[in-house]
């Protein structure tokens, strides 16, 4: 169809050209297809994988090893551990990043030392240490600091300024110890990610906000961090996915309610090695896929006003307006 333009001339027909051929690509695709077929053939015809063991039933009267009760418990443990240690990591990481950027030398040094320490110590070592901390301190409490020492200063023996305290074997064992170890370690990495994000934002942004009378907290919360999120989210996605896999380290705390440990237990009982490993692999694949979908939406949320997504939204609005529709925000 042709439309008359403003000059009165007719718009020429849309271009229908023969696209450039890419024979190299077709060869590559063919090679890949054969390789994939070979791979699938290898997997599905080798009885050693024992797919029914994985999916349908691993022992008489039991479900497949992926779905058996202790493994599902372990899966739940892995997910909870990931969520909680990432919450600690992100929360503490933001605080440490802000301390690190503070003009106050004491604060920034403390933050620097923290990152230095927890990045240097392997997570596995941390996990084991935290599993054994309850040997060092028998009770953990909350209350007046140095209460015993202050008591002695005034000649009172056994002065107790603790508001509450618990036996550390109750608190610092298993799940909680693993969670804290992973969370503290994660905070060091998150601090660096958040710092990079904050520093990537133009100085003029906080200047404009301050000039409007906003407080430093408001500037950070409303102006700097929301923009920094664009830089923070992708590496944080990496961190979450790495954390899912690192939760298997807490087996050394020891924590038993964890996916890989549970599957190894089944392995030890049934002497069926490979299918158990494949079951673990499949679960990790599933968790990470879900996380990647979540990351996609989070990234889209924080790209408001930037690049393609923002422009596309605007185009939609313009079309609505053109068609006499209402602007919805």
């Amino acid at each position: 169809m042709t439309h008359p333009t403003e000059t009165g001339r007719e718009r020429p027909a849309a271009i229908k050209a023969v696209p450039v051929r890419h024979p190299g690509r077709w060869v590559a695709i063919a090679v890949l297809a054969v390789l994939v077929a070979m791979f699938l053939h290898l997997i599905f015809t080798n009885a050693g994988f024992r797919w029914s063991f994985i999916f349908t039933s691993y022992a008489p009267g039991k479900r497949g090893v992926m779905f058996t009760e202790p493994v599902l418990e372990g899966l739940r443990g892995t997910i909870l551990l990931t969520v909680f240690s990432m919450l600690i990591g992100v929360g503490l990481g933001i605080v440490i990043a802000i301390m690190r950027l503070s003009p106050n030398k004491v604060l920034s040094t403390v933050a620097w030392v923290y990152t230095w320490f927890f990045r240097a110590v392997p997570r596995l070592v941390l996990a084991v240490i935290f599993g054994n901390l309850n040997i060092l301190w028998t009770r953990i409490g909350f209350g007046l600091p140095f209460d015993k020492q202050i008591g002695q200063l005034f000649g009172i023996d056994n002065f107790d300024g603790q508001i509450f305290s618990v036996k550390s074997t109750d608190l610092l064992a298993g799940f909680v110890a693993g969670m804290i170890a992973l969370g503290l370690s994660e905070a060091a990495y998150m601090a660096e990610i958040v710092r990079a994000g904050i520093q990537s934002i133009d100085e003029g942004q906080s200047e404009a906000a301050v000039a409007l009378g906003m407080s430093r907290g408001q500037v950070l919360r409303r102006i700097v961090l929301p923009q920094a999120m664009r830089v923070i989210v992708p590496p944080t996605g990496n961190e979450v996915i790495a954390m899912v896999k690192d939760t298997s380290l807490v087996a050394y705390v020891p924590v038993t309610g964890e996916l890989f440990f549970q599957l190894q237990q089944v392995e030890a009982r049934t002497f069926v090695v490979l299918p158990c490993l494949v079951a673990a692999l499949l679960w990790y694949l599933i968790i990470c896929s879900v996380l990647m979908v979540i990351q996609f939406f989070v990234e889209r949320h924080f790209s408001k006003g930037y690049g393609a997504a923002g422009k596309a939204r605007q185009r939609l609005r313009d079309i609505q307006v053109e068609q006499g529709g209402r602007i919805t925000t």
Partner: protein
Amino acid sequence: MTEMVRAESVHKSFGSLEVLKGVDLTVPQGGVSCVLGPSGSGKSTFLRCINHLDKLDAGRILVDGELVGYRERGGKLHELSERDVAKQRQTIGMVFQRFNLFPHMTALDNVMEAPCRVKRESKAEVRDRALALLDRVGLAEKVDNYPGQLSGGQQQRVAIARALAMRPKVMLFDEPTSALDPELVGEVLEVMKGLARDGMTMIVVTHEIGFAREVADEVVFMDGGVVVEKGPPAEIIANPQQERTKAFLSKVL
């Protein structure tokens, strides 16, 4: 007429570099002062001292009779808390050369942000005011656009509306049109002329001599951290007395 801004012998150094070496300036309420001067003469630094983005080393600045950044008690100066400084900044609007709009907010949200968050005014009321302001700067159709979807001139007009939304007593402009394509300069200057007509007190750092001649009550020529010459635009621009002023004007005119 009452004085809105009064700067007395303002000194400011960055390290060993003395940028301001005793700048004096008074602007009456509703007055418009245009600050001219070569690059590096300290114009931006002076503006930033007025709302305490930069701390001065010596001298004093008063806005509407109130000392900026300090409190005088018993002959001694006490630094104001961050909160009190923020409170003073609410009454001093500032427009930057590079706009500095918040890119993650729509034009409307940019304008509404400070009144809602800082002054905690009711959202509905602020919204009406923000829409009126955006209409006044000619952007009624662009309220829902993000800064990235606006031209430079449009962005700068949003930035002006954003500053006005706080109902400032004085507006500071730091080369508001220097980052704009020539054909967009006019629309921003038009908005500023309107403001001046409506009686806003303004200090404008600019290289737009035509604007200074037309709008300014006083033109201030700065060079090397001092005010070299000041007076009514007709006199300073048409008939400068100082060599440095003559040399500068011959380059920009």
